[in-house]
């Protein structure tokens, strides 16, 4: 029985940490309706600045805290001023993407400056421990709790009783009204980002000390868990964020207690999904709030798409189709094979995120489902490879749609969070469902690509196969876009309220989009499985989902030709720039930022 006390205390201790990150996220969301995907990066920056302070400068604890808070706040201010403020009047998707780009840039800067090796961050507190239940809590636990509670309390008082606090709350409720009342909204945003960043950086430092370890991989985990905690507590709700963090810690702890350690993250994301579907306003929100005033702004950038002339398309097709006949190395062909496979994913995502407006951040999960299905069909059931790949596509379409369907009732950023969580869940299920997926061992010995009994051995034959499949899917998608369904997708994207008013069932059309897109992605995954001959739960990951999203934005949301062009560019160019390998991700993050800032409708325009 004492074990349950221990699990509870452990859950609260870890939850404490999550709460700190979540508070920063809640502050920012409250004011600018923005999920700051870069919060984890600020957390990382804080940890490393803390390291510099403690190890290099040897400052006493009090100074270290001030230094980290100040430096992190500065980073936050810079992000707000130069990364986000220019996007104020841009479409709502732009800041979301900008924070993703910023997180890449910050993470890479830290990694290039400090090297990827983990480092020790010694705690500057005396190591006194108190016995509680079967375990102990230490001075650092208490400090973290104090920081969490104090900052929440201070924030609460600040927001309630100070002039700037009132300004912040007013802006959160109704930005335009606040502006008209003379509130300097820009100053408010700056203040909020500064505070949230200071908190984020400080929590990074404290957590680093707590575990005596910091490394550049901390960033993504912090963001993910912070988002879960924040959404659970109610997006924008600061006290709720603390409660959400503690709740998350407890859920994880109990999940480990009952099911085992490998299920920990699964429980975290399941909590998120449950909250999103049952109480999207958070567990602590009052039910049935006033529905928001219908917005006139659209989520997507209005644009005039560049109509690629027929002759250009035909020429491009001919060039790429005939490429293997030219004396190009198999390296070039392989790179293009990768590009075609990615293009299929991009086609799928541009349909779902571009044409339909459901910005999915977990699309790689569809690749994984298709890959595993195809691999298992051909290995366990001896299905011919061609059929297995189609099977992969069909299962991905069905299962993917089914998994994502509860998110159909969500709007805006919540769709992205839900799909991100679903993507992580699929990966974790694959890891844990050993009887079927072989768990962490993965599936090896997957039969190579073959068509009608003929094995596709040379790079050229694989190239033609993947090119042909991609072109076929692209043509089907173009046909779909030209039909009433394409029209319906775009109407739902532009204004789902008006769409419903005219008889368009959102569930029906969202499902159709994911079915079609799921098929395309599943086929891509299936082909990849047979190409790689070995897959495991890490082969198709969140990073690929984000790469696919960047490709889609680069090419133009909903733009089929754009998705293909974007794939060739973003898969091909890094190969060209292999010399700058260390800077690749940094360049990539900067490219995303520039794109979002200066051409959110993409190269070829949104359709």
């Amino acid at each position, binding site marked *: 029985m004492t074990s349950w006390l221990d699990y509870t205390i452990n859950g609260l201790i870890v939850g404490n940490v999550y709460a700190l990150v979540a508070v920063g996220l809640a502050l920012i969301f409250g004011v600018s309706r923005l999920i700051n995907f870069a919060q984890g990066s600020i957390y990382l920056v804080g940890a490393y600045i803390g390291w510099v302070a403690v190890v290099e400068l040897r400052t006493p604890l009090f100074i270290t805290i001030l230094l980290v808070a100040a430096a992190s706040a500065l980073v936050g201010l810079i992000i707000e001023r130069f990364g986000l403020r220019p996007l104020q009047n841009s479409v709502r998707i732009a800041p979301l993407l900008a924070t993703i780009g910023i997180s890449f840039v910050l993470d890479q800067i830290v990694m290039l400056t400090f*090297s990827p090796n983990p480092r020790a961050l010694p705690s500057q507190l005396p190591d006194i421990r108190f016995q509680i239940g079967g375990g102990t809590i230490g001075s650092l636990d208490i400090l973290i709790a104090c920081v969490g509670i104090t900052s929440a309390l201070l924030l609460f008082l600040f927001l309630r009783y100070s002039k700037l606090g009132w300004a912040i709350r007013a802006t959160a409720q109704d930005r335009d009204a606040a502006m008209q009342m003379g509130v300097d909204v820009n100053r408010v945003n700056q203040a909020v980002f500064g505070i949230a960043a200071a908190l984020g950086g400080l929590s990074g430092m404290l957590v680093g000390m707590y575990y005596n370890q910091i490394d550049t991989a901390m960033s993504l*985990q912090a963001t993910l868990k912070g988002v879960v905690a924040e959404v659970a507590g109610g997006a924008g709700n600061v006290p709720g964020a603390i409660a959400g963090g503690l709740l998350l810690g407890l859920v994880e702890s109990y999940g480990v207690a009952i099911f085992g350690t*490998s299920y920990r993250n699964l429980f975290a994301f399941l909590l998120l999904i449950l909250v999103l579907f049952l109480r999207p306003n958070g567990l602590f929100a009052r039910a049935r709030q006033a529905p928001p005033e219908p917005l006139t702004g659209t989520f997507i950038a209005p644009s005039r798409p560049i109509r690629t002339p027929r002759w250009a398309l035909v020429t491009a097709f001919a060039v790429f189709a005939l490429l293997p006949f030219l004396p190009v*190395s198999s390296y070039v062909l392989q*790179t293009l094979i990768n590009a075609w496979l990615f293009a299929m994913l991009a086609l799928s995502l541009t349909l779902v995120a571009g044409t339909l407006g459901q910005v999915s951040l977990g699309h790689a999960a569809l690749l994984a489902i298709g890959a595993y299905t195809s691999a298992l069909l051909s290995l366990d059931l001896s299905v011919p490879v061609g059929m297995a790949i189609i099977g992969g596509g069909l299962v991905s379409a069905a299962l993917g749609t089914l998994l994502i369907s509860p998110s159909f009732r969500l709007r805006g950023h919540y769709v992205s969070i839900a799909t991100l969580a679903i993507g992580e869940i699929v990966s974790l299920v694959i890891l844990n469902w050993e009887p079927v997926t072989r768990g*962490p061992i993965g599936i090896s010995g997957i039969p190579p690509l073959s068509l009608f009994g003929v094995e596709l051995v040379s790079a050229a034959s694989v190239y033609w196969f993947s090119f042909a499949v991609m072109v076929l899917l692209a043509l089907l998608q173009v046909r779909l876009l030209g039909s009433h369904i394409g029209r319906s997708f775009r109407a739902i994207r532009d204004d789902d309220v008006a769409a419903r008013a005219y008889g368009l069932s959102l569930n029906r059309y969202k499902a159709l989009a994911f079915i079609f897109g799921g098929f395309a992605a599943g086929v891509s995954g299936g082909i990849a499985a047979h190409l790689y*001959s070995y897959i495991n739960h890490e082969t198709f990951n969140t990073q690929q989902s984000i790469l696919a999203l960047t490709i889609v934005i680069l090419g133009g949301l909903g733009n089929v030709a754009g998705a293909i062009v974007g794939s060739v560019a973003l898969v091909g160019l890094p190969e060209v720039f292999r010399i700058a390998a260390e800077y690749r991700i940094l360049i990539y993050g900067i490219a995303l930022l520039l794109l979002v800032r200066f051409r959110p409708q993409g190269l070829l325009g949104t359709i």
Partner: protein
Amino acid sequence: MSNIDRRTLVKGSLAAIVTAAAASRALAQSSEPVMLGVSGPLTGPNAQYGAQWKQGFDLALDEIHAAGGINGRKLAYAFEDSQSDPRQSVAIAQKFVSDPRIVMELGDFSSPASMAASPIYQRAGLVQFGFTNSHPDFTKGGDFMWSTSVSQADEQPLLARYAVSHLGLKKLAILHLNTDWGRTSRDYFVKAAKDLGAEAVIAEGYIAEERDFRSTLVRVRDANPDGLILISYYSDGALIARQARQVGLKQTICAASSVYSPKFLELGGEAVEDVHLGTRYFPDDPRPEVRKFVSGFKAKYNGQEPDAFNAYSYDAMNMAAAVLKIGGADRRAIRDAFAKVRDVSTVIFGPATFDVESRRVKGAMNAELVVRKGQFTLWDGKPT
């Protein structure tokens, strides 16, 4: 005008030019280095290991060149960043096989990245020499797949012997990374321990990003083990050890060789005192090849102590050199040379010879260490 008419002049000049070109090419070839291709992570989540590879490679190269290189030619490597991502390792594989200068490939770091590229290397006939990818099926990819990564089938029984027979632990709690390496290792360990009369009372797998093990450790505590077995890398190993002590677990901790790194001591601090580990070598190892490696490493890298990954890459480069000396510059001959090398001096295996059937090196050196006063020392056989 002399007797040389224009035609002769032209012909003569052409001949001269061609001869000069051929001569200079022959000259260049013999002074051009023998090129290896390395596919591994320079950026991304495993970037730290790529950096450690380079340290090992470069140290080995210094020694190889000091000893005359490969039949007089220098040896060099082209490191392409795969980020341990199968998509990229596959593209890199195509690049390497198309490049006639590359005679052998080393890498990749992870199993998915390595095995995805195997079909390409096999079909093109370029040796893919793995040295940290531990998936048991790796060498089944074809007869061009060779590996010096220690098979867990060899390593885990050694660890089991240390924990069960030598340390006397009977009820074991096993914490392992939930990767293919971690799982395979765990399965071999459990079997070996069972054969020696011990029991695995609980086995918990965790993902690499995990930081907080406290609840896991409560589960462990409730299973009543007398020893904790860590199948971890150094950063997670350090975290677990720290948190185990913080929650009050006093059981003996015995870890796999993958924690062997000065980083383990740095990150673990006092908590890793008295942690036992089985390794392939240790700082005061009297073996001459180890002395050479450790002192060379410290000299080259500012007094830094080498770790397990440095040793793997150092050995791999030395093995590659040994193979190249026999196999020359022809890719097929190089493949055949793997079967011919005998007793190559390595840190990990001592004298290493490939088992042609499995294309791996069997057996591994074993040292039983314990952390005392913040240092890795040979275990003196006394209980903790």
